[in-house]
C-alpha cells in the first residue's frame, strides 16, 4: 500500500454527538487497518481538552506500538467543534499538511471532530469520506430524527449495540428508520466493546475511500 510520495493522503472524517464513541471507534479501527497494511495518522479535535489525543497516544502508540506518537495530534477548538471542521477548517488543514510532511507515505489521515450536534458535517476540503456515529443510548429515535450529519454522511454508524437491552432501544426500529432516512446510502451497527462490525467497517473504508479491492476481507453488501 506504500508509495514513494503521496501528498494527497486519503482523509476520513468522524463526527457525532458527545460520547457516541468517536475516539473508541478510531482505537478499534486503527489496529484492523494496520493488519491490512494501512498506516494512519490521527487528528483529534476536542472541545475542552486534548484528553482524547492523549488517550490515543497511549493506547495506539506507547502501549501497542501501532503507530508513532507524533502522528497523533490534538486540536482544541475554542468551543466551536463544527466551525473547526466545516466553515473554518484552517487549523485542521494546517495540521494535515504537518502530518504529511512528517510522513508522506501515510495511507490515511483520520480526523475526529469534537462532540457536537446532529447538523455537523465535514468540509469537503477536509474529509474525502465522512462517518457519522451515533449510539443506541441516545434513544432509538435518533436515526428517525435525521439531521444533516445523519442524512448526508457517507456511512452512518450506530454504536454500542451491546447497550440496547439496557436502555430499551429497539435495534429493529433503528434499522428500519436508518434505511428510510438514508435511502440508498450505507449504515451499519457497531459494538466497539466486542469489535463486532469493525471488519465490515474497515472493508467499507478500504473499498469506498481507499479504493483498494485487494485488501478487502469480507464482501461489503450495501
Amino acid at each position: 500500500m506504500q508509495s514513494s510520495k503521496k501528498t494527497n493522503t486519503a482523509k476520513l472524517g468522524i463526527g457525532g454527538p458527545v460520547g457516541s464513541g468517536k475516539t473508541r471507534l478510531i482505537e478499534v479501527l486503527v489496529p484492523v487497518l494496520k493488519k491490512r497494511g494501512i498506516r494512519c495518522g490521527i487528528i483529534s479535535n476536542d472541545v475542552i481538552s486534548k484528553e482524547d489525543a492523549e488517550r490515543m497516544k497511549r493506547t495506539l502508540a506507547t502501549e501497542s506500538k501501532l503507530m508513532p506518537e507524533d502522528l497523533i495530534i490534538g486540536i482544541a477548538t475554542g468551543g466551536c467543534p463544527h466551525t473547526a471542521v466545516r466553515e473554518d477548517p484552517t487549523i485542521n488543514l494546517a495540521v494535515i499538511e504537518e502530518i504529511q510532511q512528517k510522513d508522506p507515505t501515510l495511507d490515511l489521515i483520520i480526523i475526529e471532530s469534537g462532540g457536537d450536534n446532529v447538523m455537523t458535517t465535514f468540509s469537503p476540503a477536509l474529509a474525502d469520506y465522512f462517518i457519522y456515529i451515533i449510539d443506541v443510548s441516545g434513544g432509538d429515535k435518533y436515526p428517525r430524527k435525521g439531521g444533516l450529519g445523519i442524512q448526508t454522511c457517507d456511512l452512518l454508524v450506530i454504536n454500542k449495540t451491546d447497550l440496547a437491552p439496557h436502555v430499551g432501544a429497539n435495534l429493529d426500529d433503528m434499522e428500519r428508520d436508518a434505511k428510510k432516512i438514508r435511502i440508498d446510502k450505507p449504515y451499519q451497527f457497531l459494538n466497539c466493546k466486542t469489535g463486532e462490525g469493525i471488519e465490515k467497517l474497515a472493508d467499507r473504508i478500504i473499498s469506498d475511500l481507499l479504493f483498494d479491492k485487494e485488501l478487502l476481507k469480507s464482501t461489503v453488501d450495501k
Partner: protein
Amino acid sequence: MYMNTNHEYHLMQLSDSFFPSGMFSMSSGLELLINNKKITNWNDVLTFIIEQIEFQIYPCDCTVLSFALTGVKNNDLNTVVNIDKKYYSMKFAKEIRNSSTRSGKQVLNSIIHMMENHDNSDFLYEFNKKIESKETPGTYPVILAVGAVCLGIPLESITRMLLYSFSSSIVSAAIRLGLIQHLDAQKILKLLAEPINKLILTNEEKNLEDIWQLTPLTEIYQMNHERNESRMFMT
C-alpha cells in the same frame, strides 16, 4: 501591482470572522488569565486588549505588517522573508508561533484560491514556494500584507483591520469562556476604536530595528497555557 477599487469590500471580507483564518480557536492567553482570576470582568478584558495592542500587537505585528507591505509592493522577496523570520523569532510561546504560521499558510491558500489567474499574482506563488521549502515560516501579519497588496487594500486600513481582528477574537473568546455577555463585547469594541485610531495616526518613521514588544506576564501565561491539560483554546 493589481489596482482594485473594491478594497473596502475586500477589507470586510478579510476581517469577517467567517474568513477562514482559524482565529476562533485563539484566546492569546486570555483563557488561563480568566481561569486564574487575573481577569474577572468586562473592564479587565478591555484593559487586557489595550495593553496587548500597545505593548505587542502595534509595535510588533503592525510594524511587521507595514514593512512587509512595502516589501511586497517592491516585489522584494528577500526583505519580506527576513521580516517574516524576524517576526517568528520574536514570538516566545510555541503555540503562538504555531498558530501564526498555521493560520498564515491557510490564509495564503485562500488568497491564492481567490486570485487564481489574476495578473501580477506572481509574488503570491513565489512566497508560497518559500514557505513550502521551509525557507520562510509564513507568519500571519506577513501573509496579511501579501493579501492586502493583492487586493489593493491600503496600509492604514489593513493595520486597522489587524487590530480589530485581534480585539474581536479576544472578546469572542471572553464570551465563550462565559466571562462577558454579547452587549459588553460590542461596548468593548466600540471603546477600542479611538485608542486604535490614535496609534495608527501617530505615523512615526520606523526602522526594522524598531520592532519591539514587551508583555512578559502575558507571555508567561501563554506558555503555561500550552502545558494546560484541560483547555478550550489553542492559545
